[in-house]
């Protein structure tokens, strides 16, 4: 049972830095994560080993969420803790002359006219924590801004959110713009938000829709045929 493994890590008070790093993620302790990672670097432990430990914990938490043993605060809390130390880890990986492999690049934004951010931010956090490289364009993002970002970052996926019925159609405008610019076939499009349904997503020509942030991670993997 994943939840038992998670509880074992939570109650393990060992000073082993890799166990401490796992514990930091499970208890959402960003300070402990940062200090432990600095210890790991001082002790010259391979950065990829540290990264694997974190991914292992994220997988445990993700699976426990799927089994309805854990909830969104657990996913987001551990995800944000992992994100908080990723810049340090990435620097170390670069210094060692290695490259961290991402599952794919995702451009993310809430469409023009809509300023709702919480769902979109959750999707970004969970995608990043699961190994995607995410470029969050924020809220009220026009087709032009999406286009600019696509040219700059060359993403595999664009993910759009719209909470309002009145802004849902903005997603269609963006998809149409991608087609006009000849970019559509190279990029997968996923949509979500309170105003969106699966039927609507298909109508406007998106590749996929999910109703929750955790499910969006599975969708991104499915669209890129990962796992």
């Amino acid at each position, binding site marked *: 049972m994943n939840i038992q493994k998670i509880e074992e890590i939570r109650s393990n008070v060992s000073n082993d830095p890799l166990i401490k790093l796992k514990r930091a993620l499970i208890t959402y302790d960003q300070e402990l994560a940062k200090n432990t990672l600095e210890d790991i670097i001082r002790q010259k432990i391979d950065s990829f080993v540290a990264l694997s430990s974190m991914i292992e914990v994220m997988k445990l938490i993700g699976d426990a969420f799927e089994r309805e043993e854990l*909830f969104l605060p657990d996913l987001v809390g551990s995800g944000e803790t992992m994100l908080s130390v990723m810049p340090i880890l990435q620097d170390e990986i670069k210094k060692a002359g290695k490259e961290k492999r991402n599952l794919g690049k995702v451009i993310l934004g809430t469409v023009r006219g809509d*300023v709702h951010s919480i769902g979109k931010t959750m999707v970004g956090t969970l995608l990043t924590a699961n190994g995607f490289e995410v470029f969050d364009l924020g809220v009220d993002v026009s087709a032009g801004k999406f286009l600019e970002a696509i040219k700059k970052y060359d993403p595999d996926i664009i993910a759009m959110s719209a909470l309002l019925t*009145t802004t849902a*159609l903005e997603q269609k405008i963006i998809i149409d713009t991608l087609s006009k610019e000849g970019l559509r076939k190279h990029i997968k499009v996923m949509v979500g938000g309170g105003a969106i349904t699966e039927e609507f997503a298909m109508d406007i020509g998106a590749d996929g829709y999910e109703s929750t942030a955790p499910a969006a991670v599975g969708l991104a993997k499915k669209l890129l045929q990962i796992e």
Partner: protein
Amino acid sequence: MMFKKGFKRIFKPLKLLSEEDVNAIHAVTLDILRNTGIKFVSKWALNFLKKHDCIVNDEDQIVKFPEGLVEECIRKTPSSFRFKARAEKDDVIFCKDVVYFQEAPGMHILDLETFKPRPPTKQEYIDYVKVLDYLPNCHLTSPYPYFGYEEVPAIMLMPELMAIKFKYSSMLGLSPYQSDAEIFIIQMAQTVSTEICGVISQAPPLTWFDNAIMQARRCIEAGFPVGPCSGTTFGATGPVTLAGTVAKTNAELISMLVLVQLLKPGHRTLMLLFEVPQNMRTGAPAFGQIGSTMANALYNQMWRWYNIPLEACSPGFINAKTPDFQSGYEKAINGIISAVSGANIVQFHGCIMGELSAHPVQAVMDDDIAGMIGRFIEGVDVNEETLALDLIHEVGQSPGHYLGKPHTAKWWKLEQFIPKVADRTATYDDWLKKGKKSSIDLAKEKTKEIIQTHNPIPLNDKQEEDIQRILEDARQYYKKRGML
């Protein structure tokens, strides 16, 4: 002509908080306003608030509010006011002890056979507005009741929806904004001689965007009341603890209240509290939960303490996907707690499946719940006539009875509430004879009857022409901007 009237609460409202609790929450609200600050994504608002002694950081767009200014603006806000409809019978007076019920919108119409939501047709939209206009315990409308209908371009949604409402109902209501739609909605309201209350929605936590501020400015300039509206989900855009979320949300709303009262001291302002816990599994708002009910009770108490009218926006929104046992208890518990704890308006009728769908049949059933709640809060008259001592002497002991007495004839309809669509047959056999009808069956029949027979107060020819002209102006406005 039927007159709608609010329900007068004759007892002291329910209080969950002690006086110390209220003071502690208010102190945190003031602290947030003074030290954390509120973000205004509007150059105009930043400059305006700077001129009025607020501390403004132009770079991060954060405004901090001095305590004296906050207290002064709260004091200047009217504690009661009249909201004027095109027909005087539909006027609404917000004061401490009167409770009104309002329609609660849903995105689509619910198919009552499959329970699948789908976009309504224009005719279904019109029919729903007519049903709401008829219902005796529905006193106000939201900016919708559906978030659109088939075939209307997205950018024209708001003006077209409001045009239908102005034509098919004389009820007062809240009014939306989006991409300057308020310019045309205000013109339509002026044309039909009604007021609207402009909703000003915030983007929690602690943020207001420019389009909301434009709506406030335009409504104030037109002399219409405004409704700063919260939208926190506890645990996502506010603390998961109710006390913390109430303090934070009140800071957000008070920051807009300050802006409104600085723009026009004494301007009529209604606070709209739309607050729900987060579903920690899906991330969606957890409508219908007890957390939402408790939050309503807390906000009602706090805003009565501020002496400013408020609307409890969440009581009608429920998680149930069909009109069933869950929808009934979620609506009833939320509605009654809101009404007994001091809300001026309870948003209630029609919606189902969170904000995702609505149906007039649900609204007809909800109208019975609203009527029962209203009857409860109007309480009991105790006087010589209602004590009926002379009558009790007169009837005496069995086999005496009260059924044929003038006192009974005069009072029974005032004392009891008669639901329109609840099953009130006496026995199983009676119920069989009447066709084994559930309340949904009865509500379907009633809805059909209302649509066929109810005639809202019509607009005159000139008003109809003006509305069409304003809609055409809106189309041209959006075409020019490449939005249509």
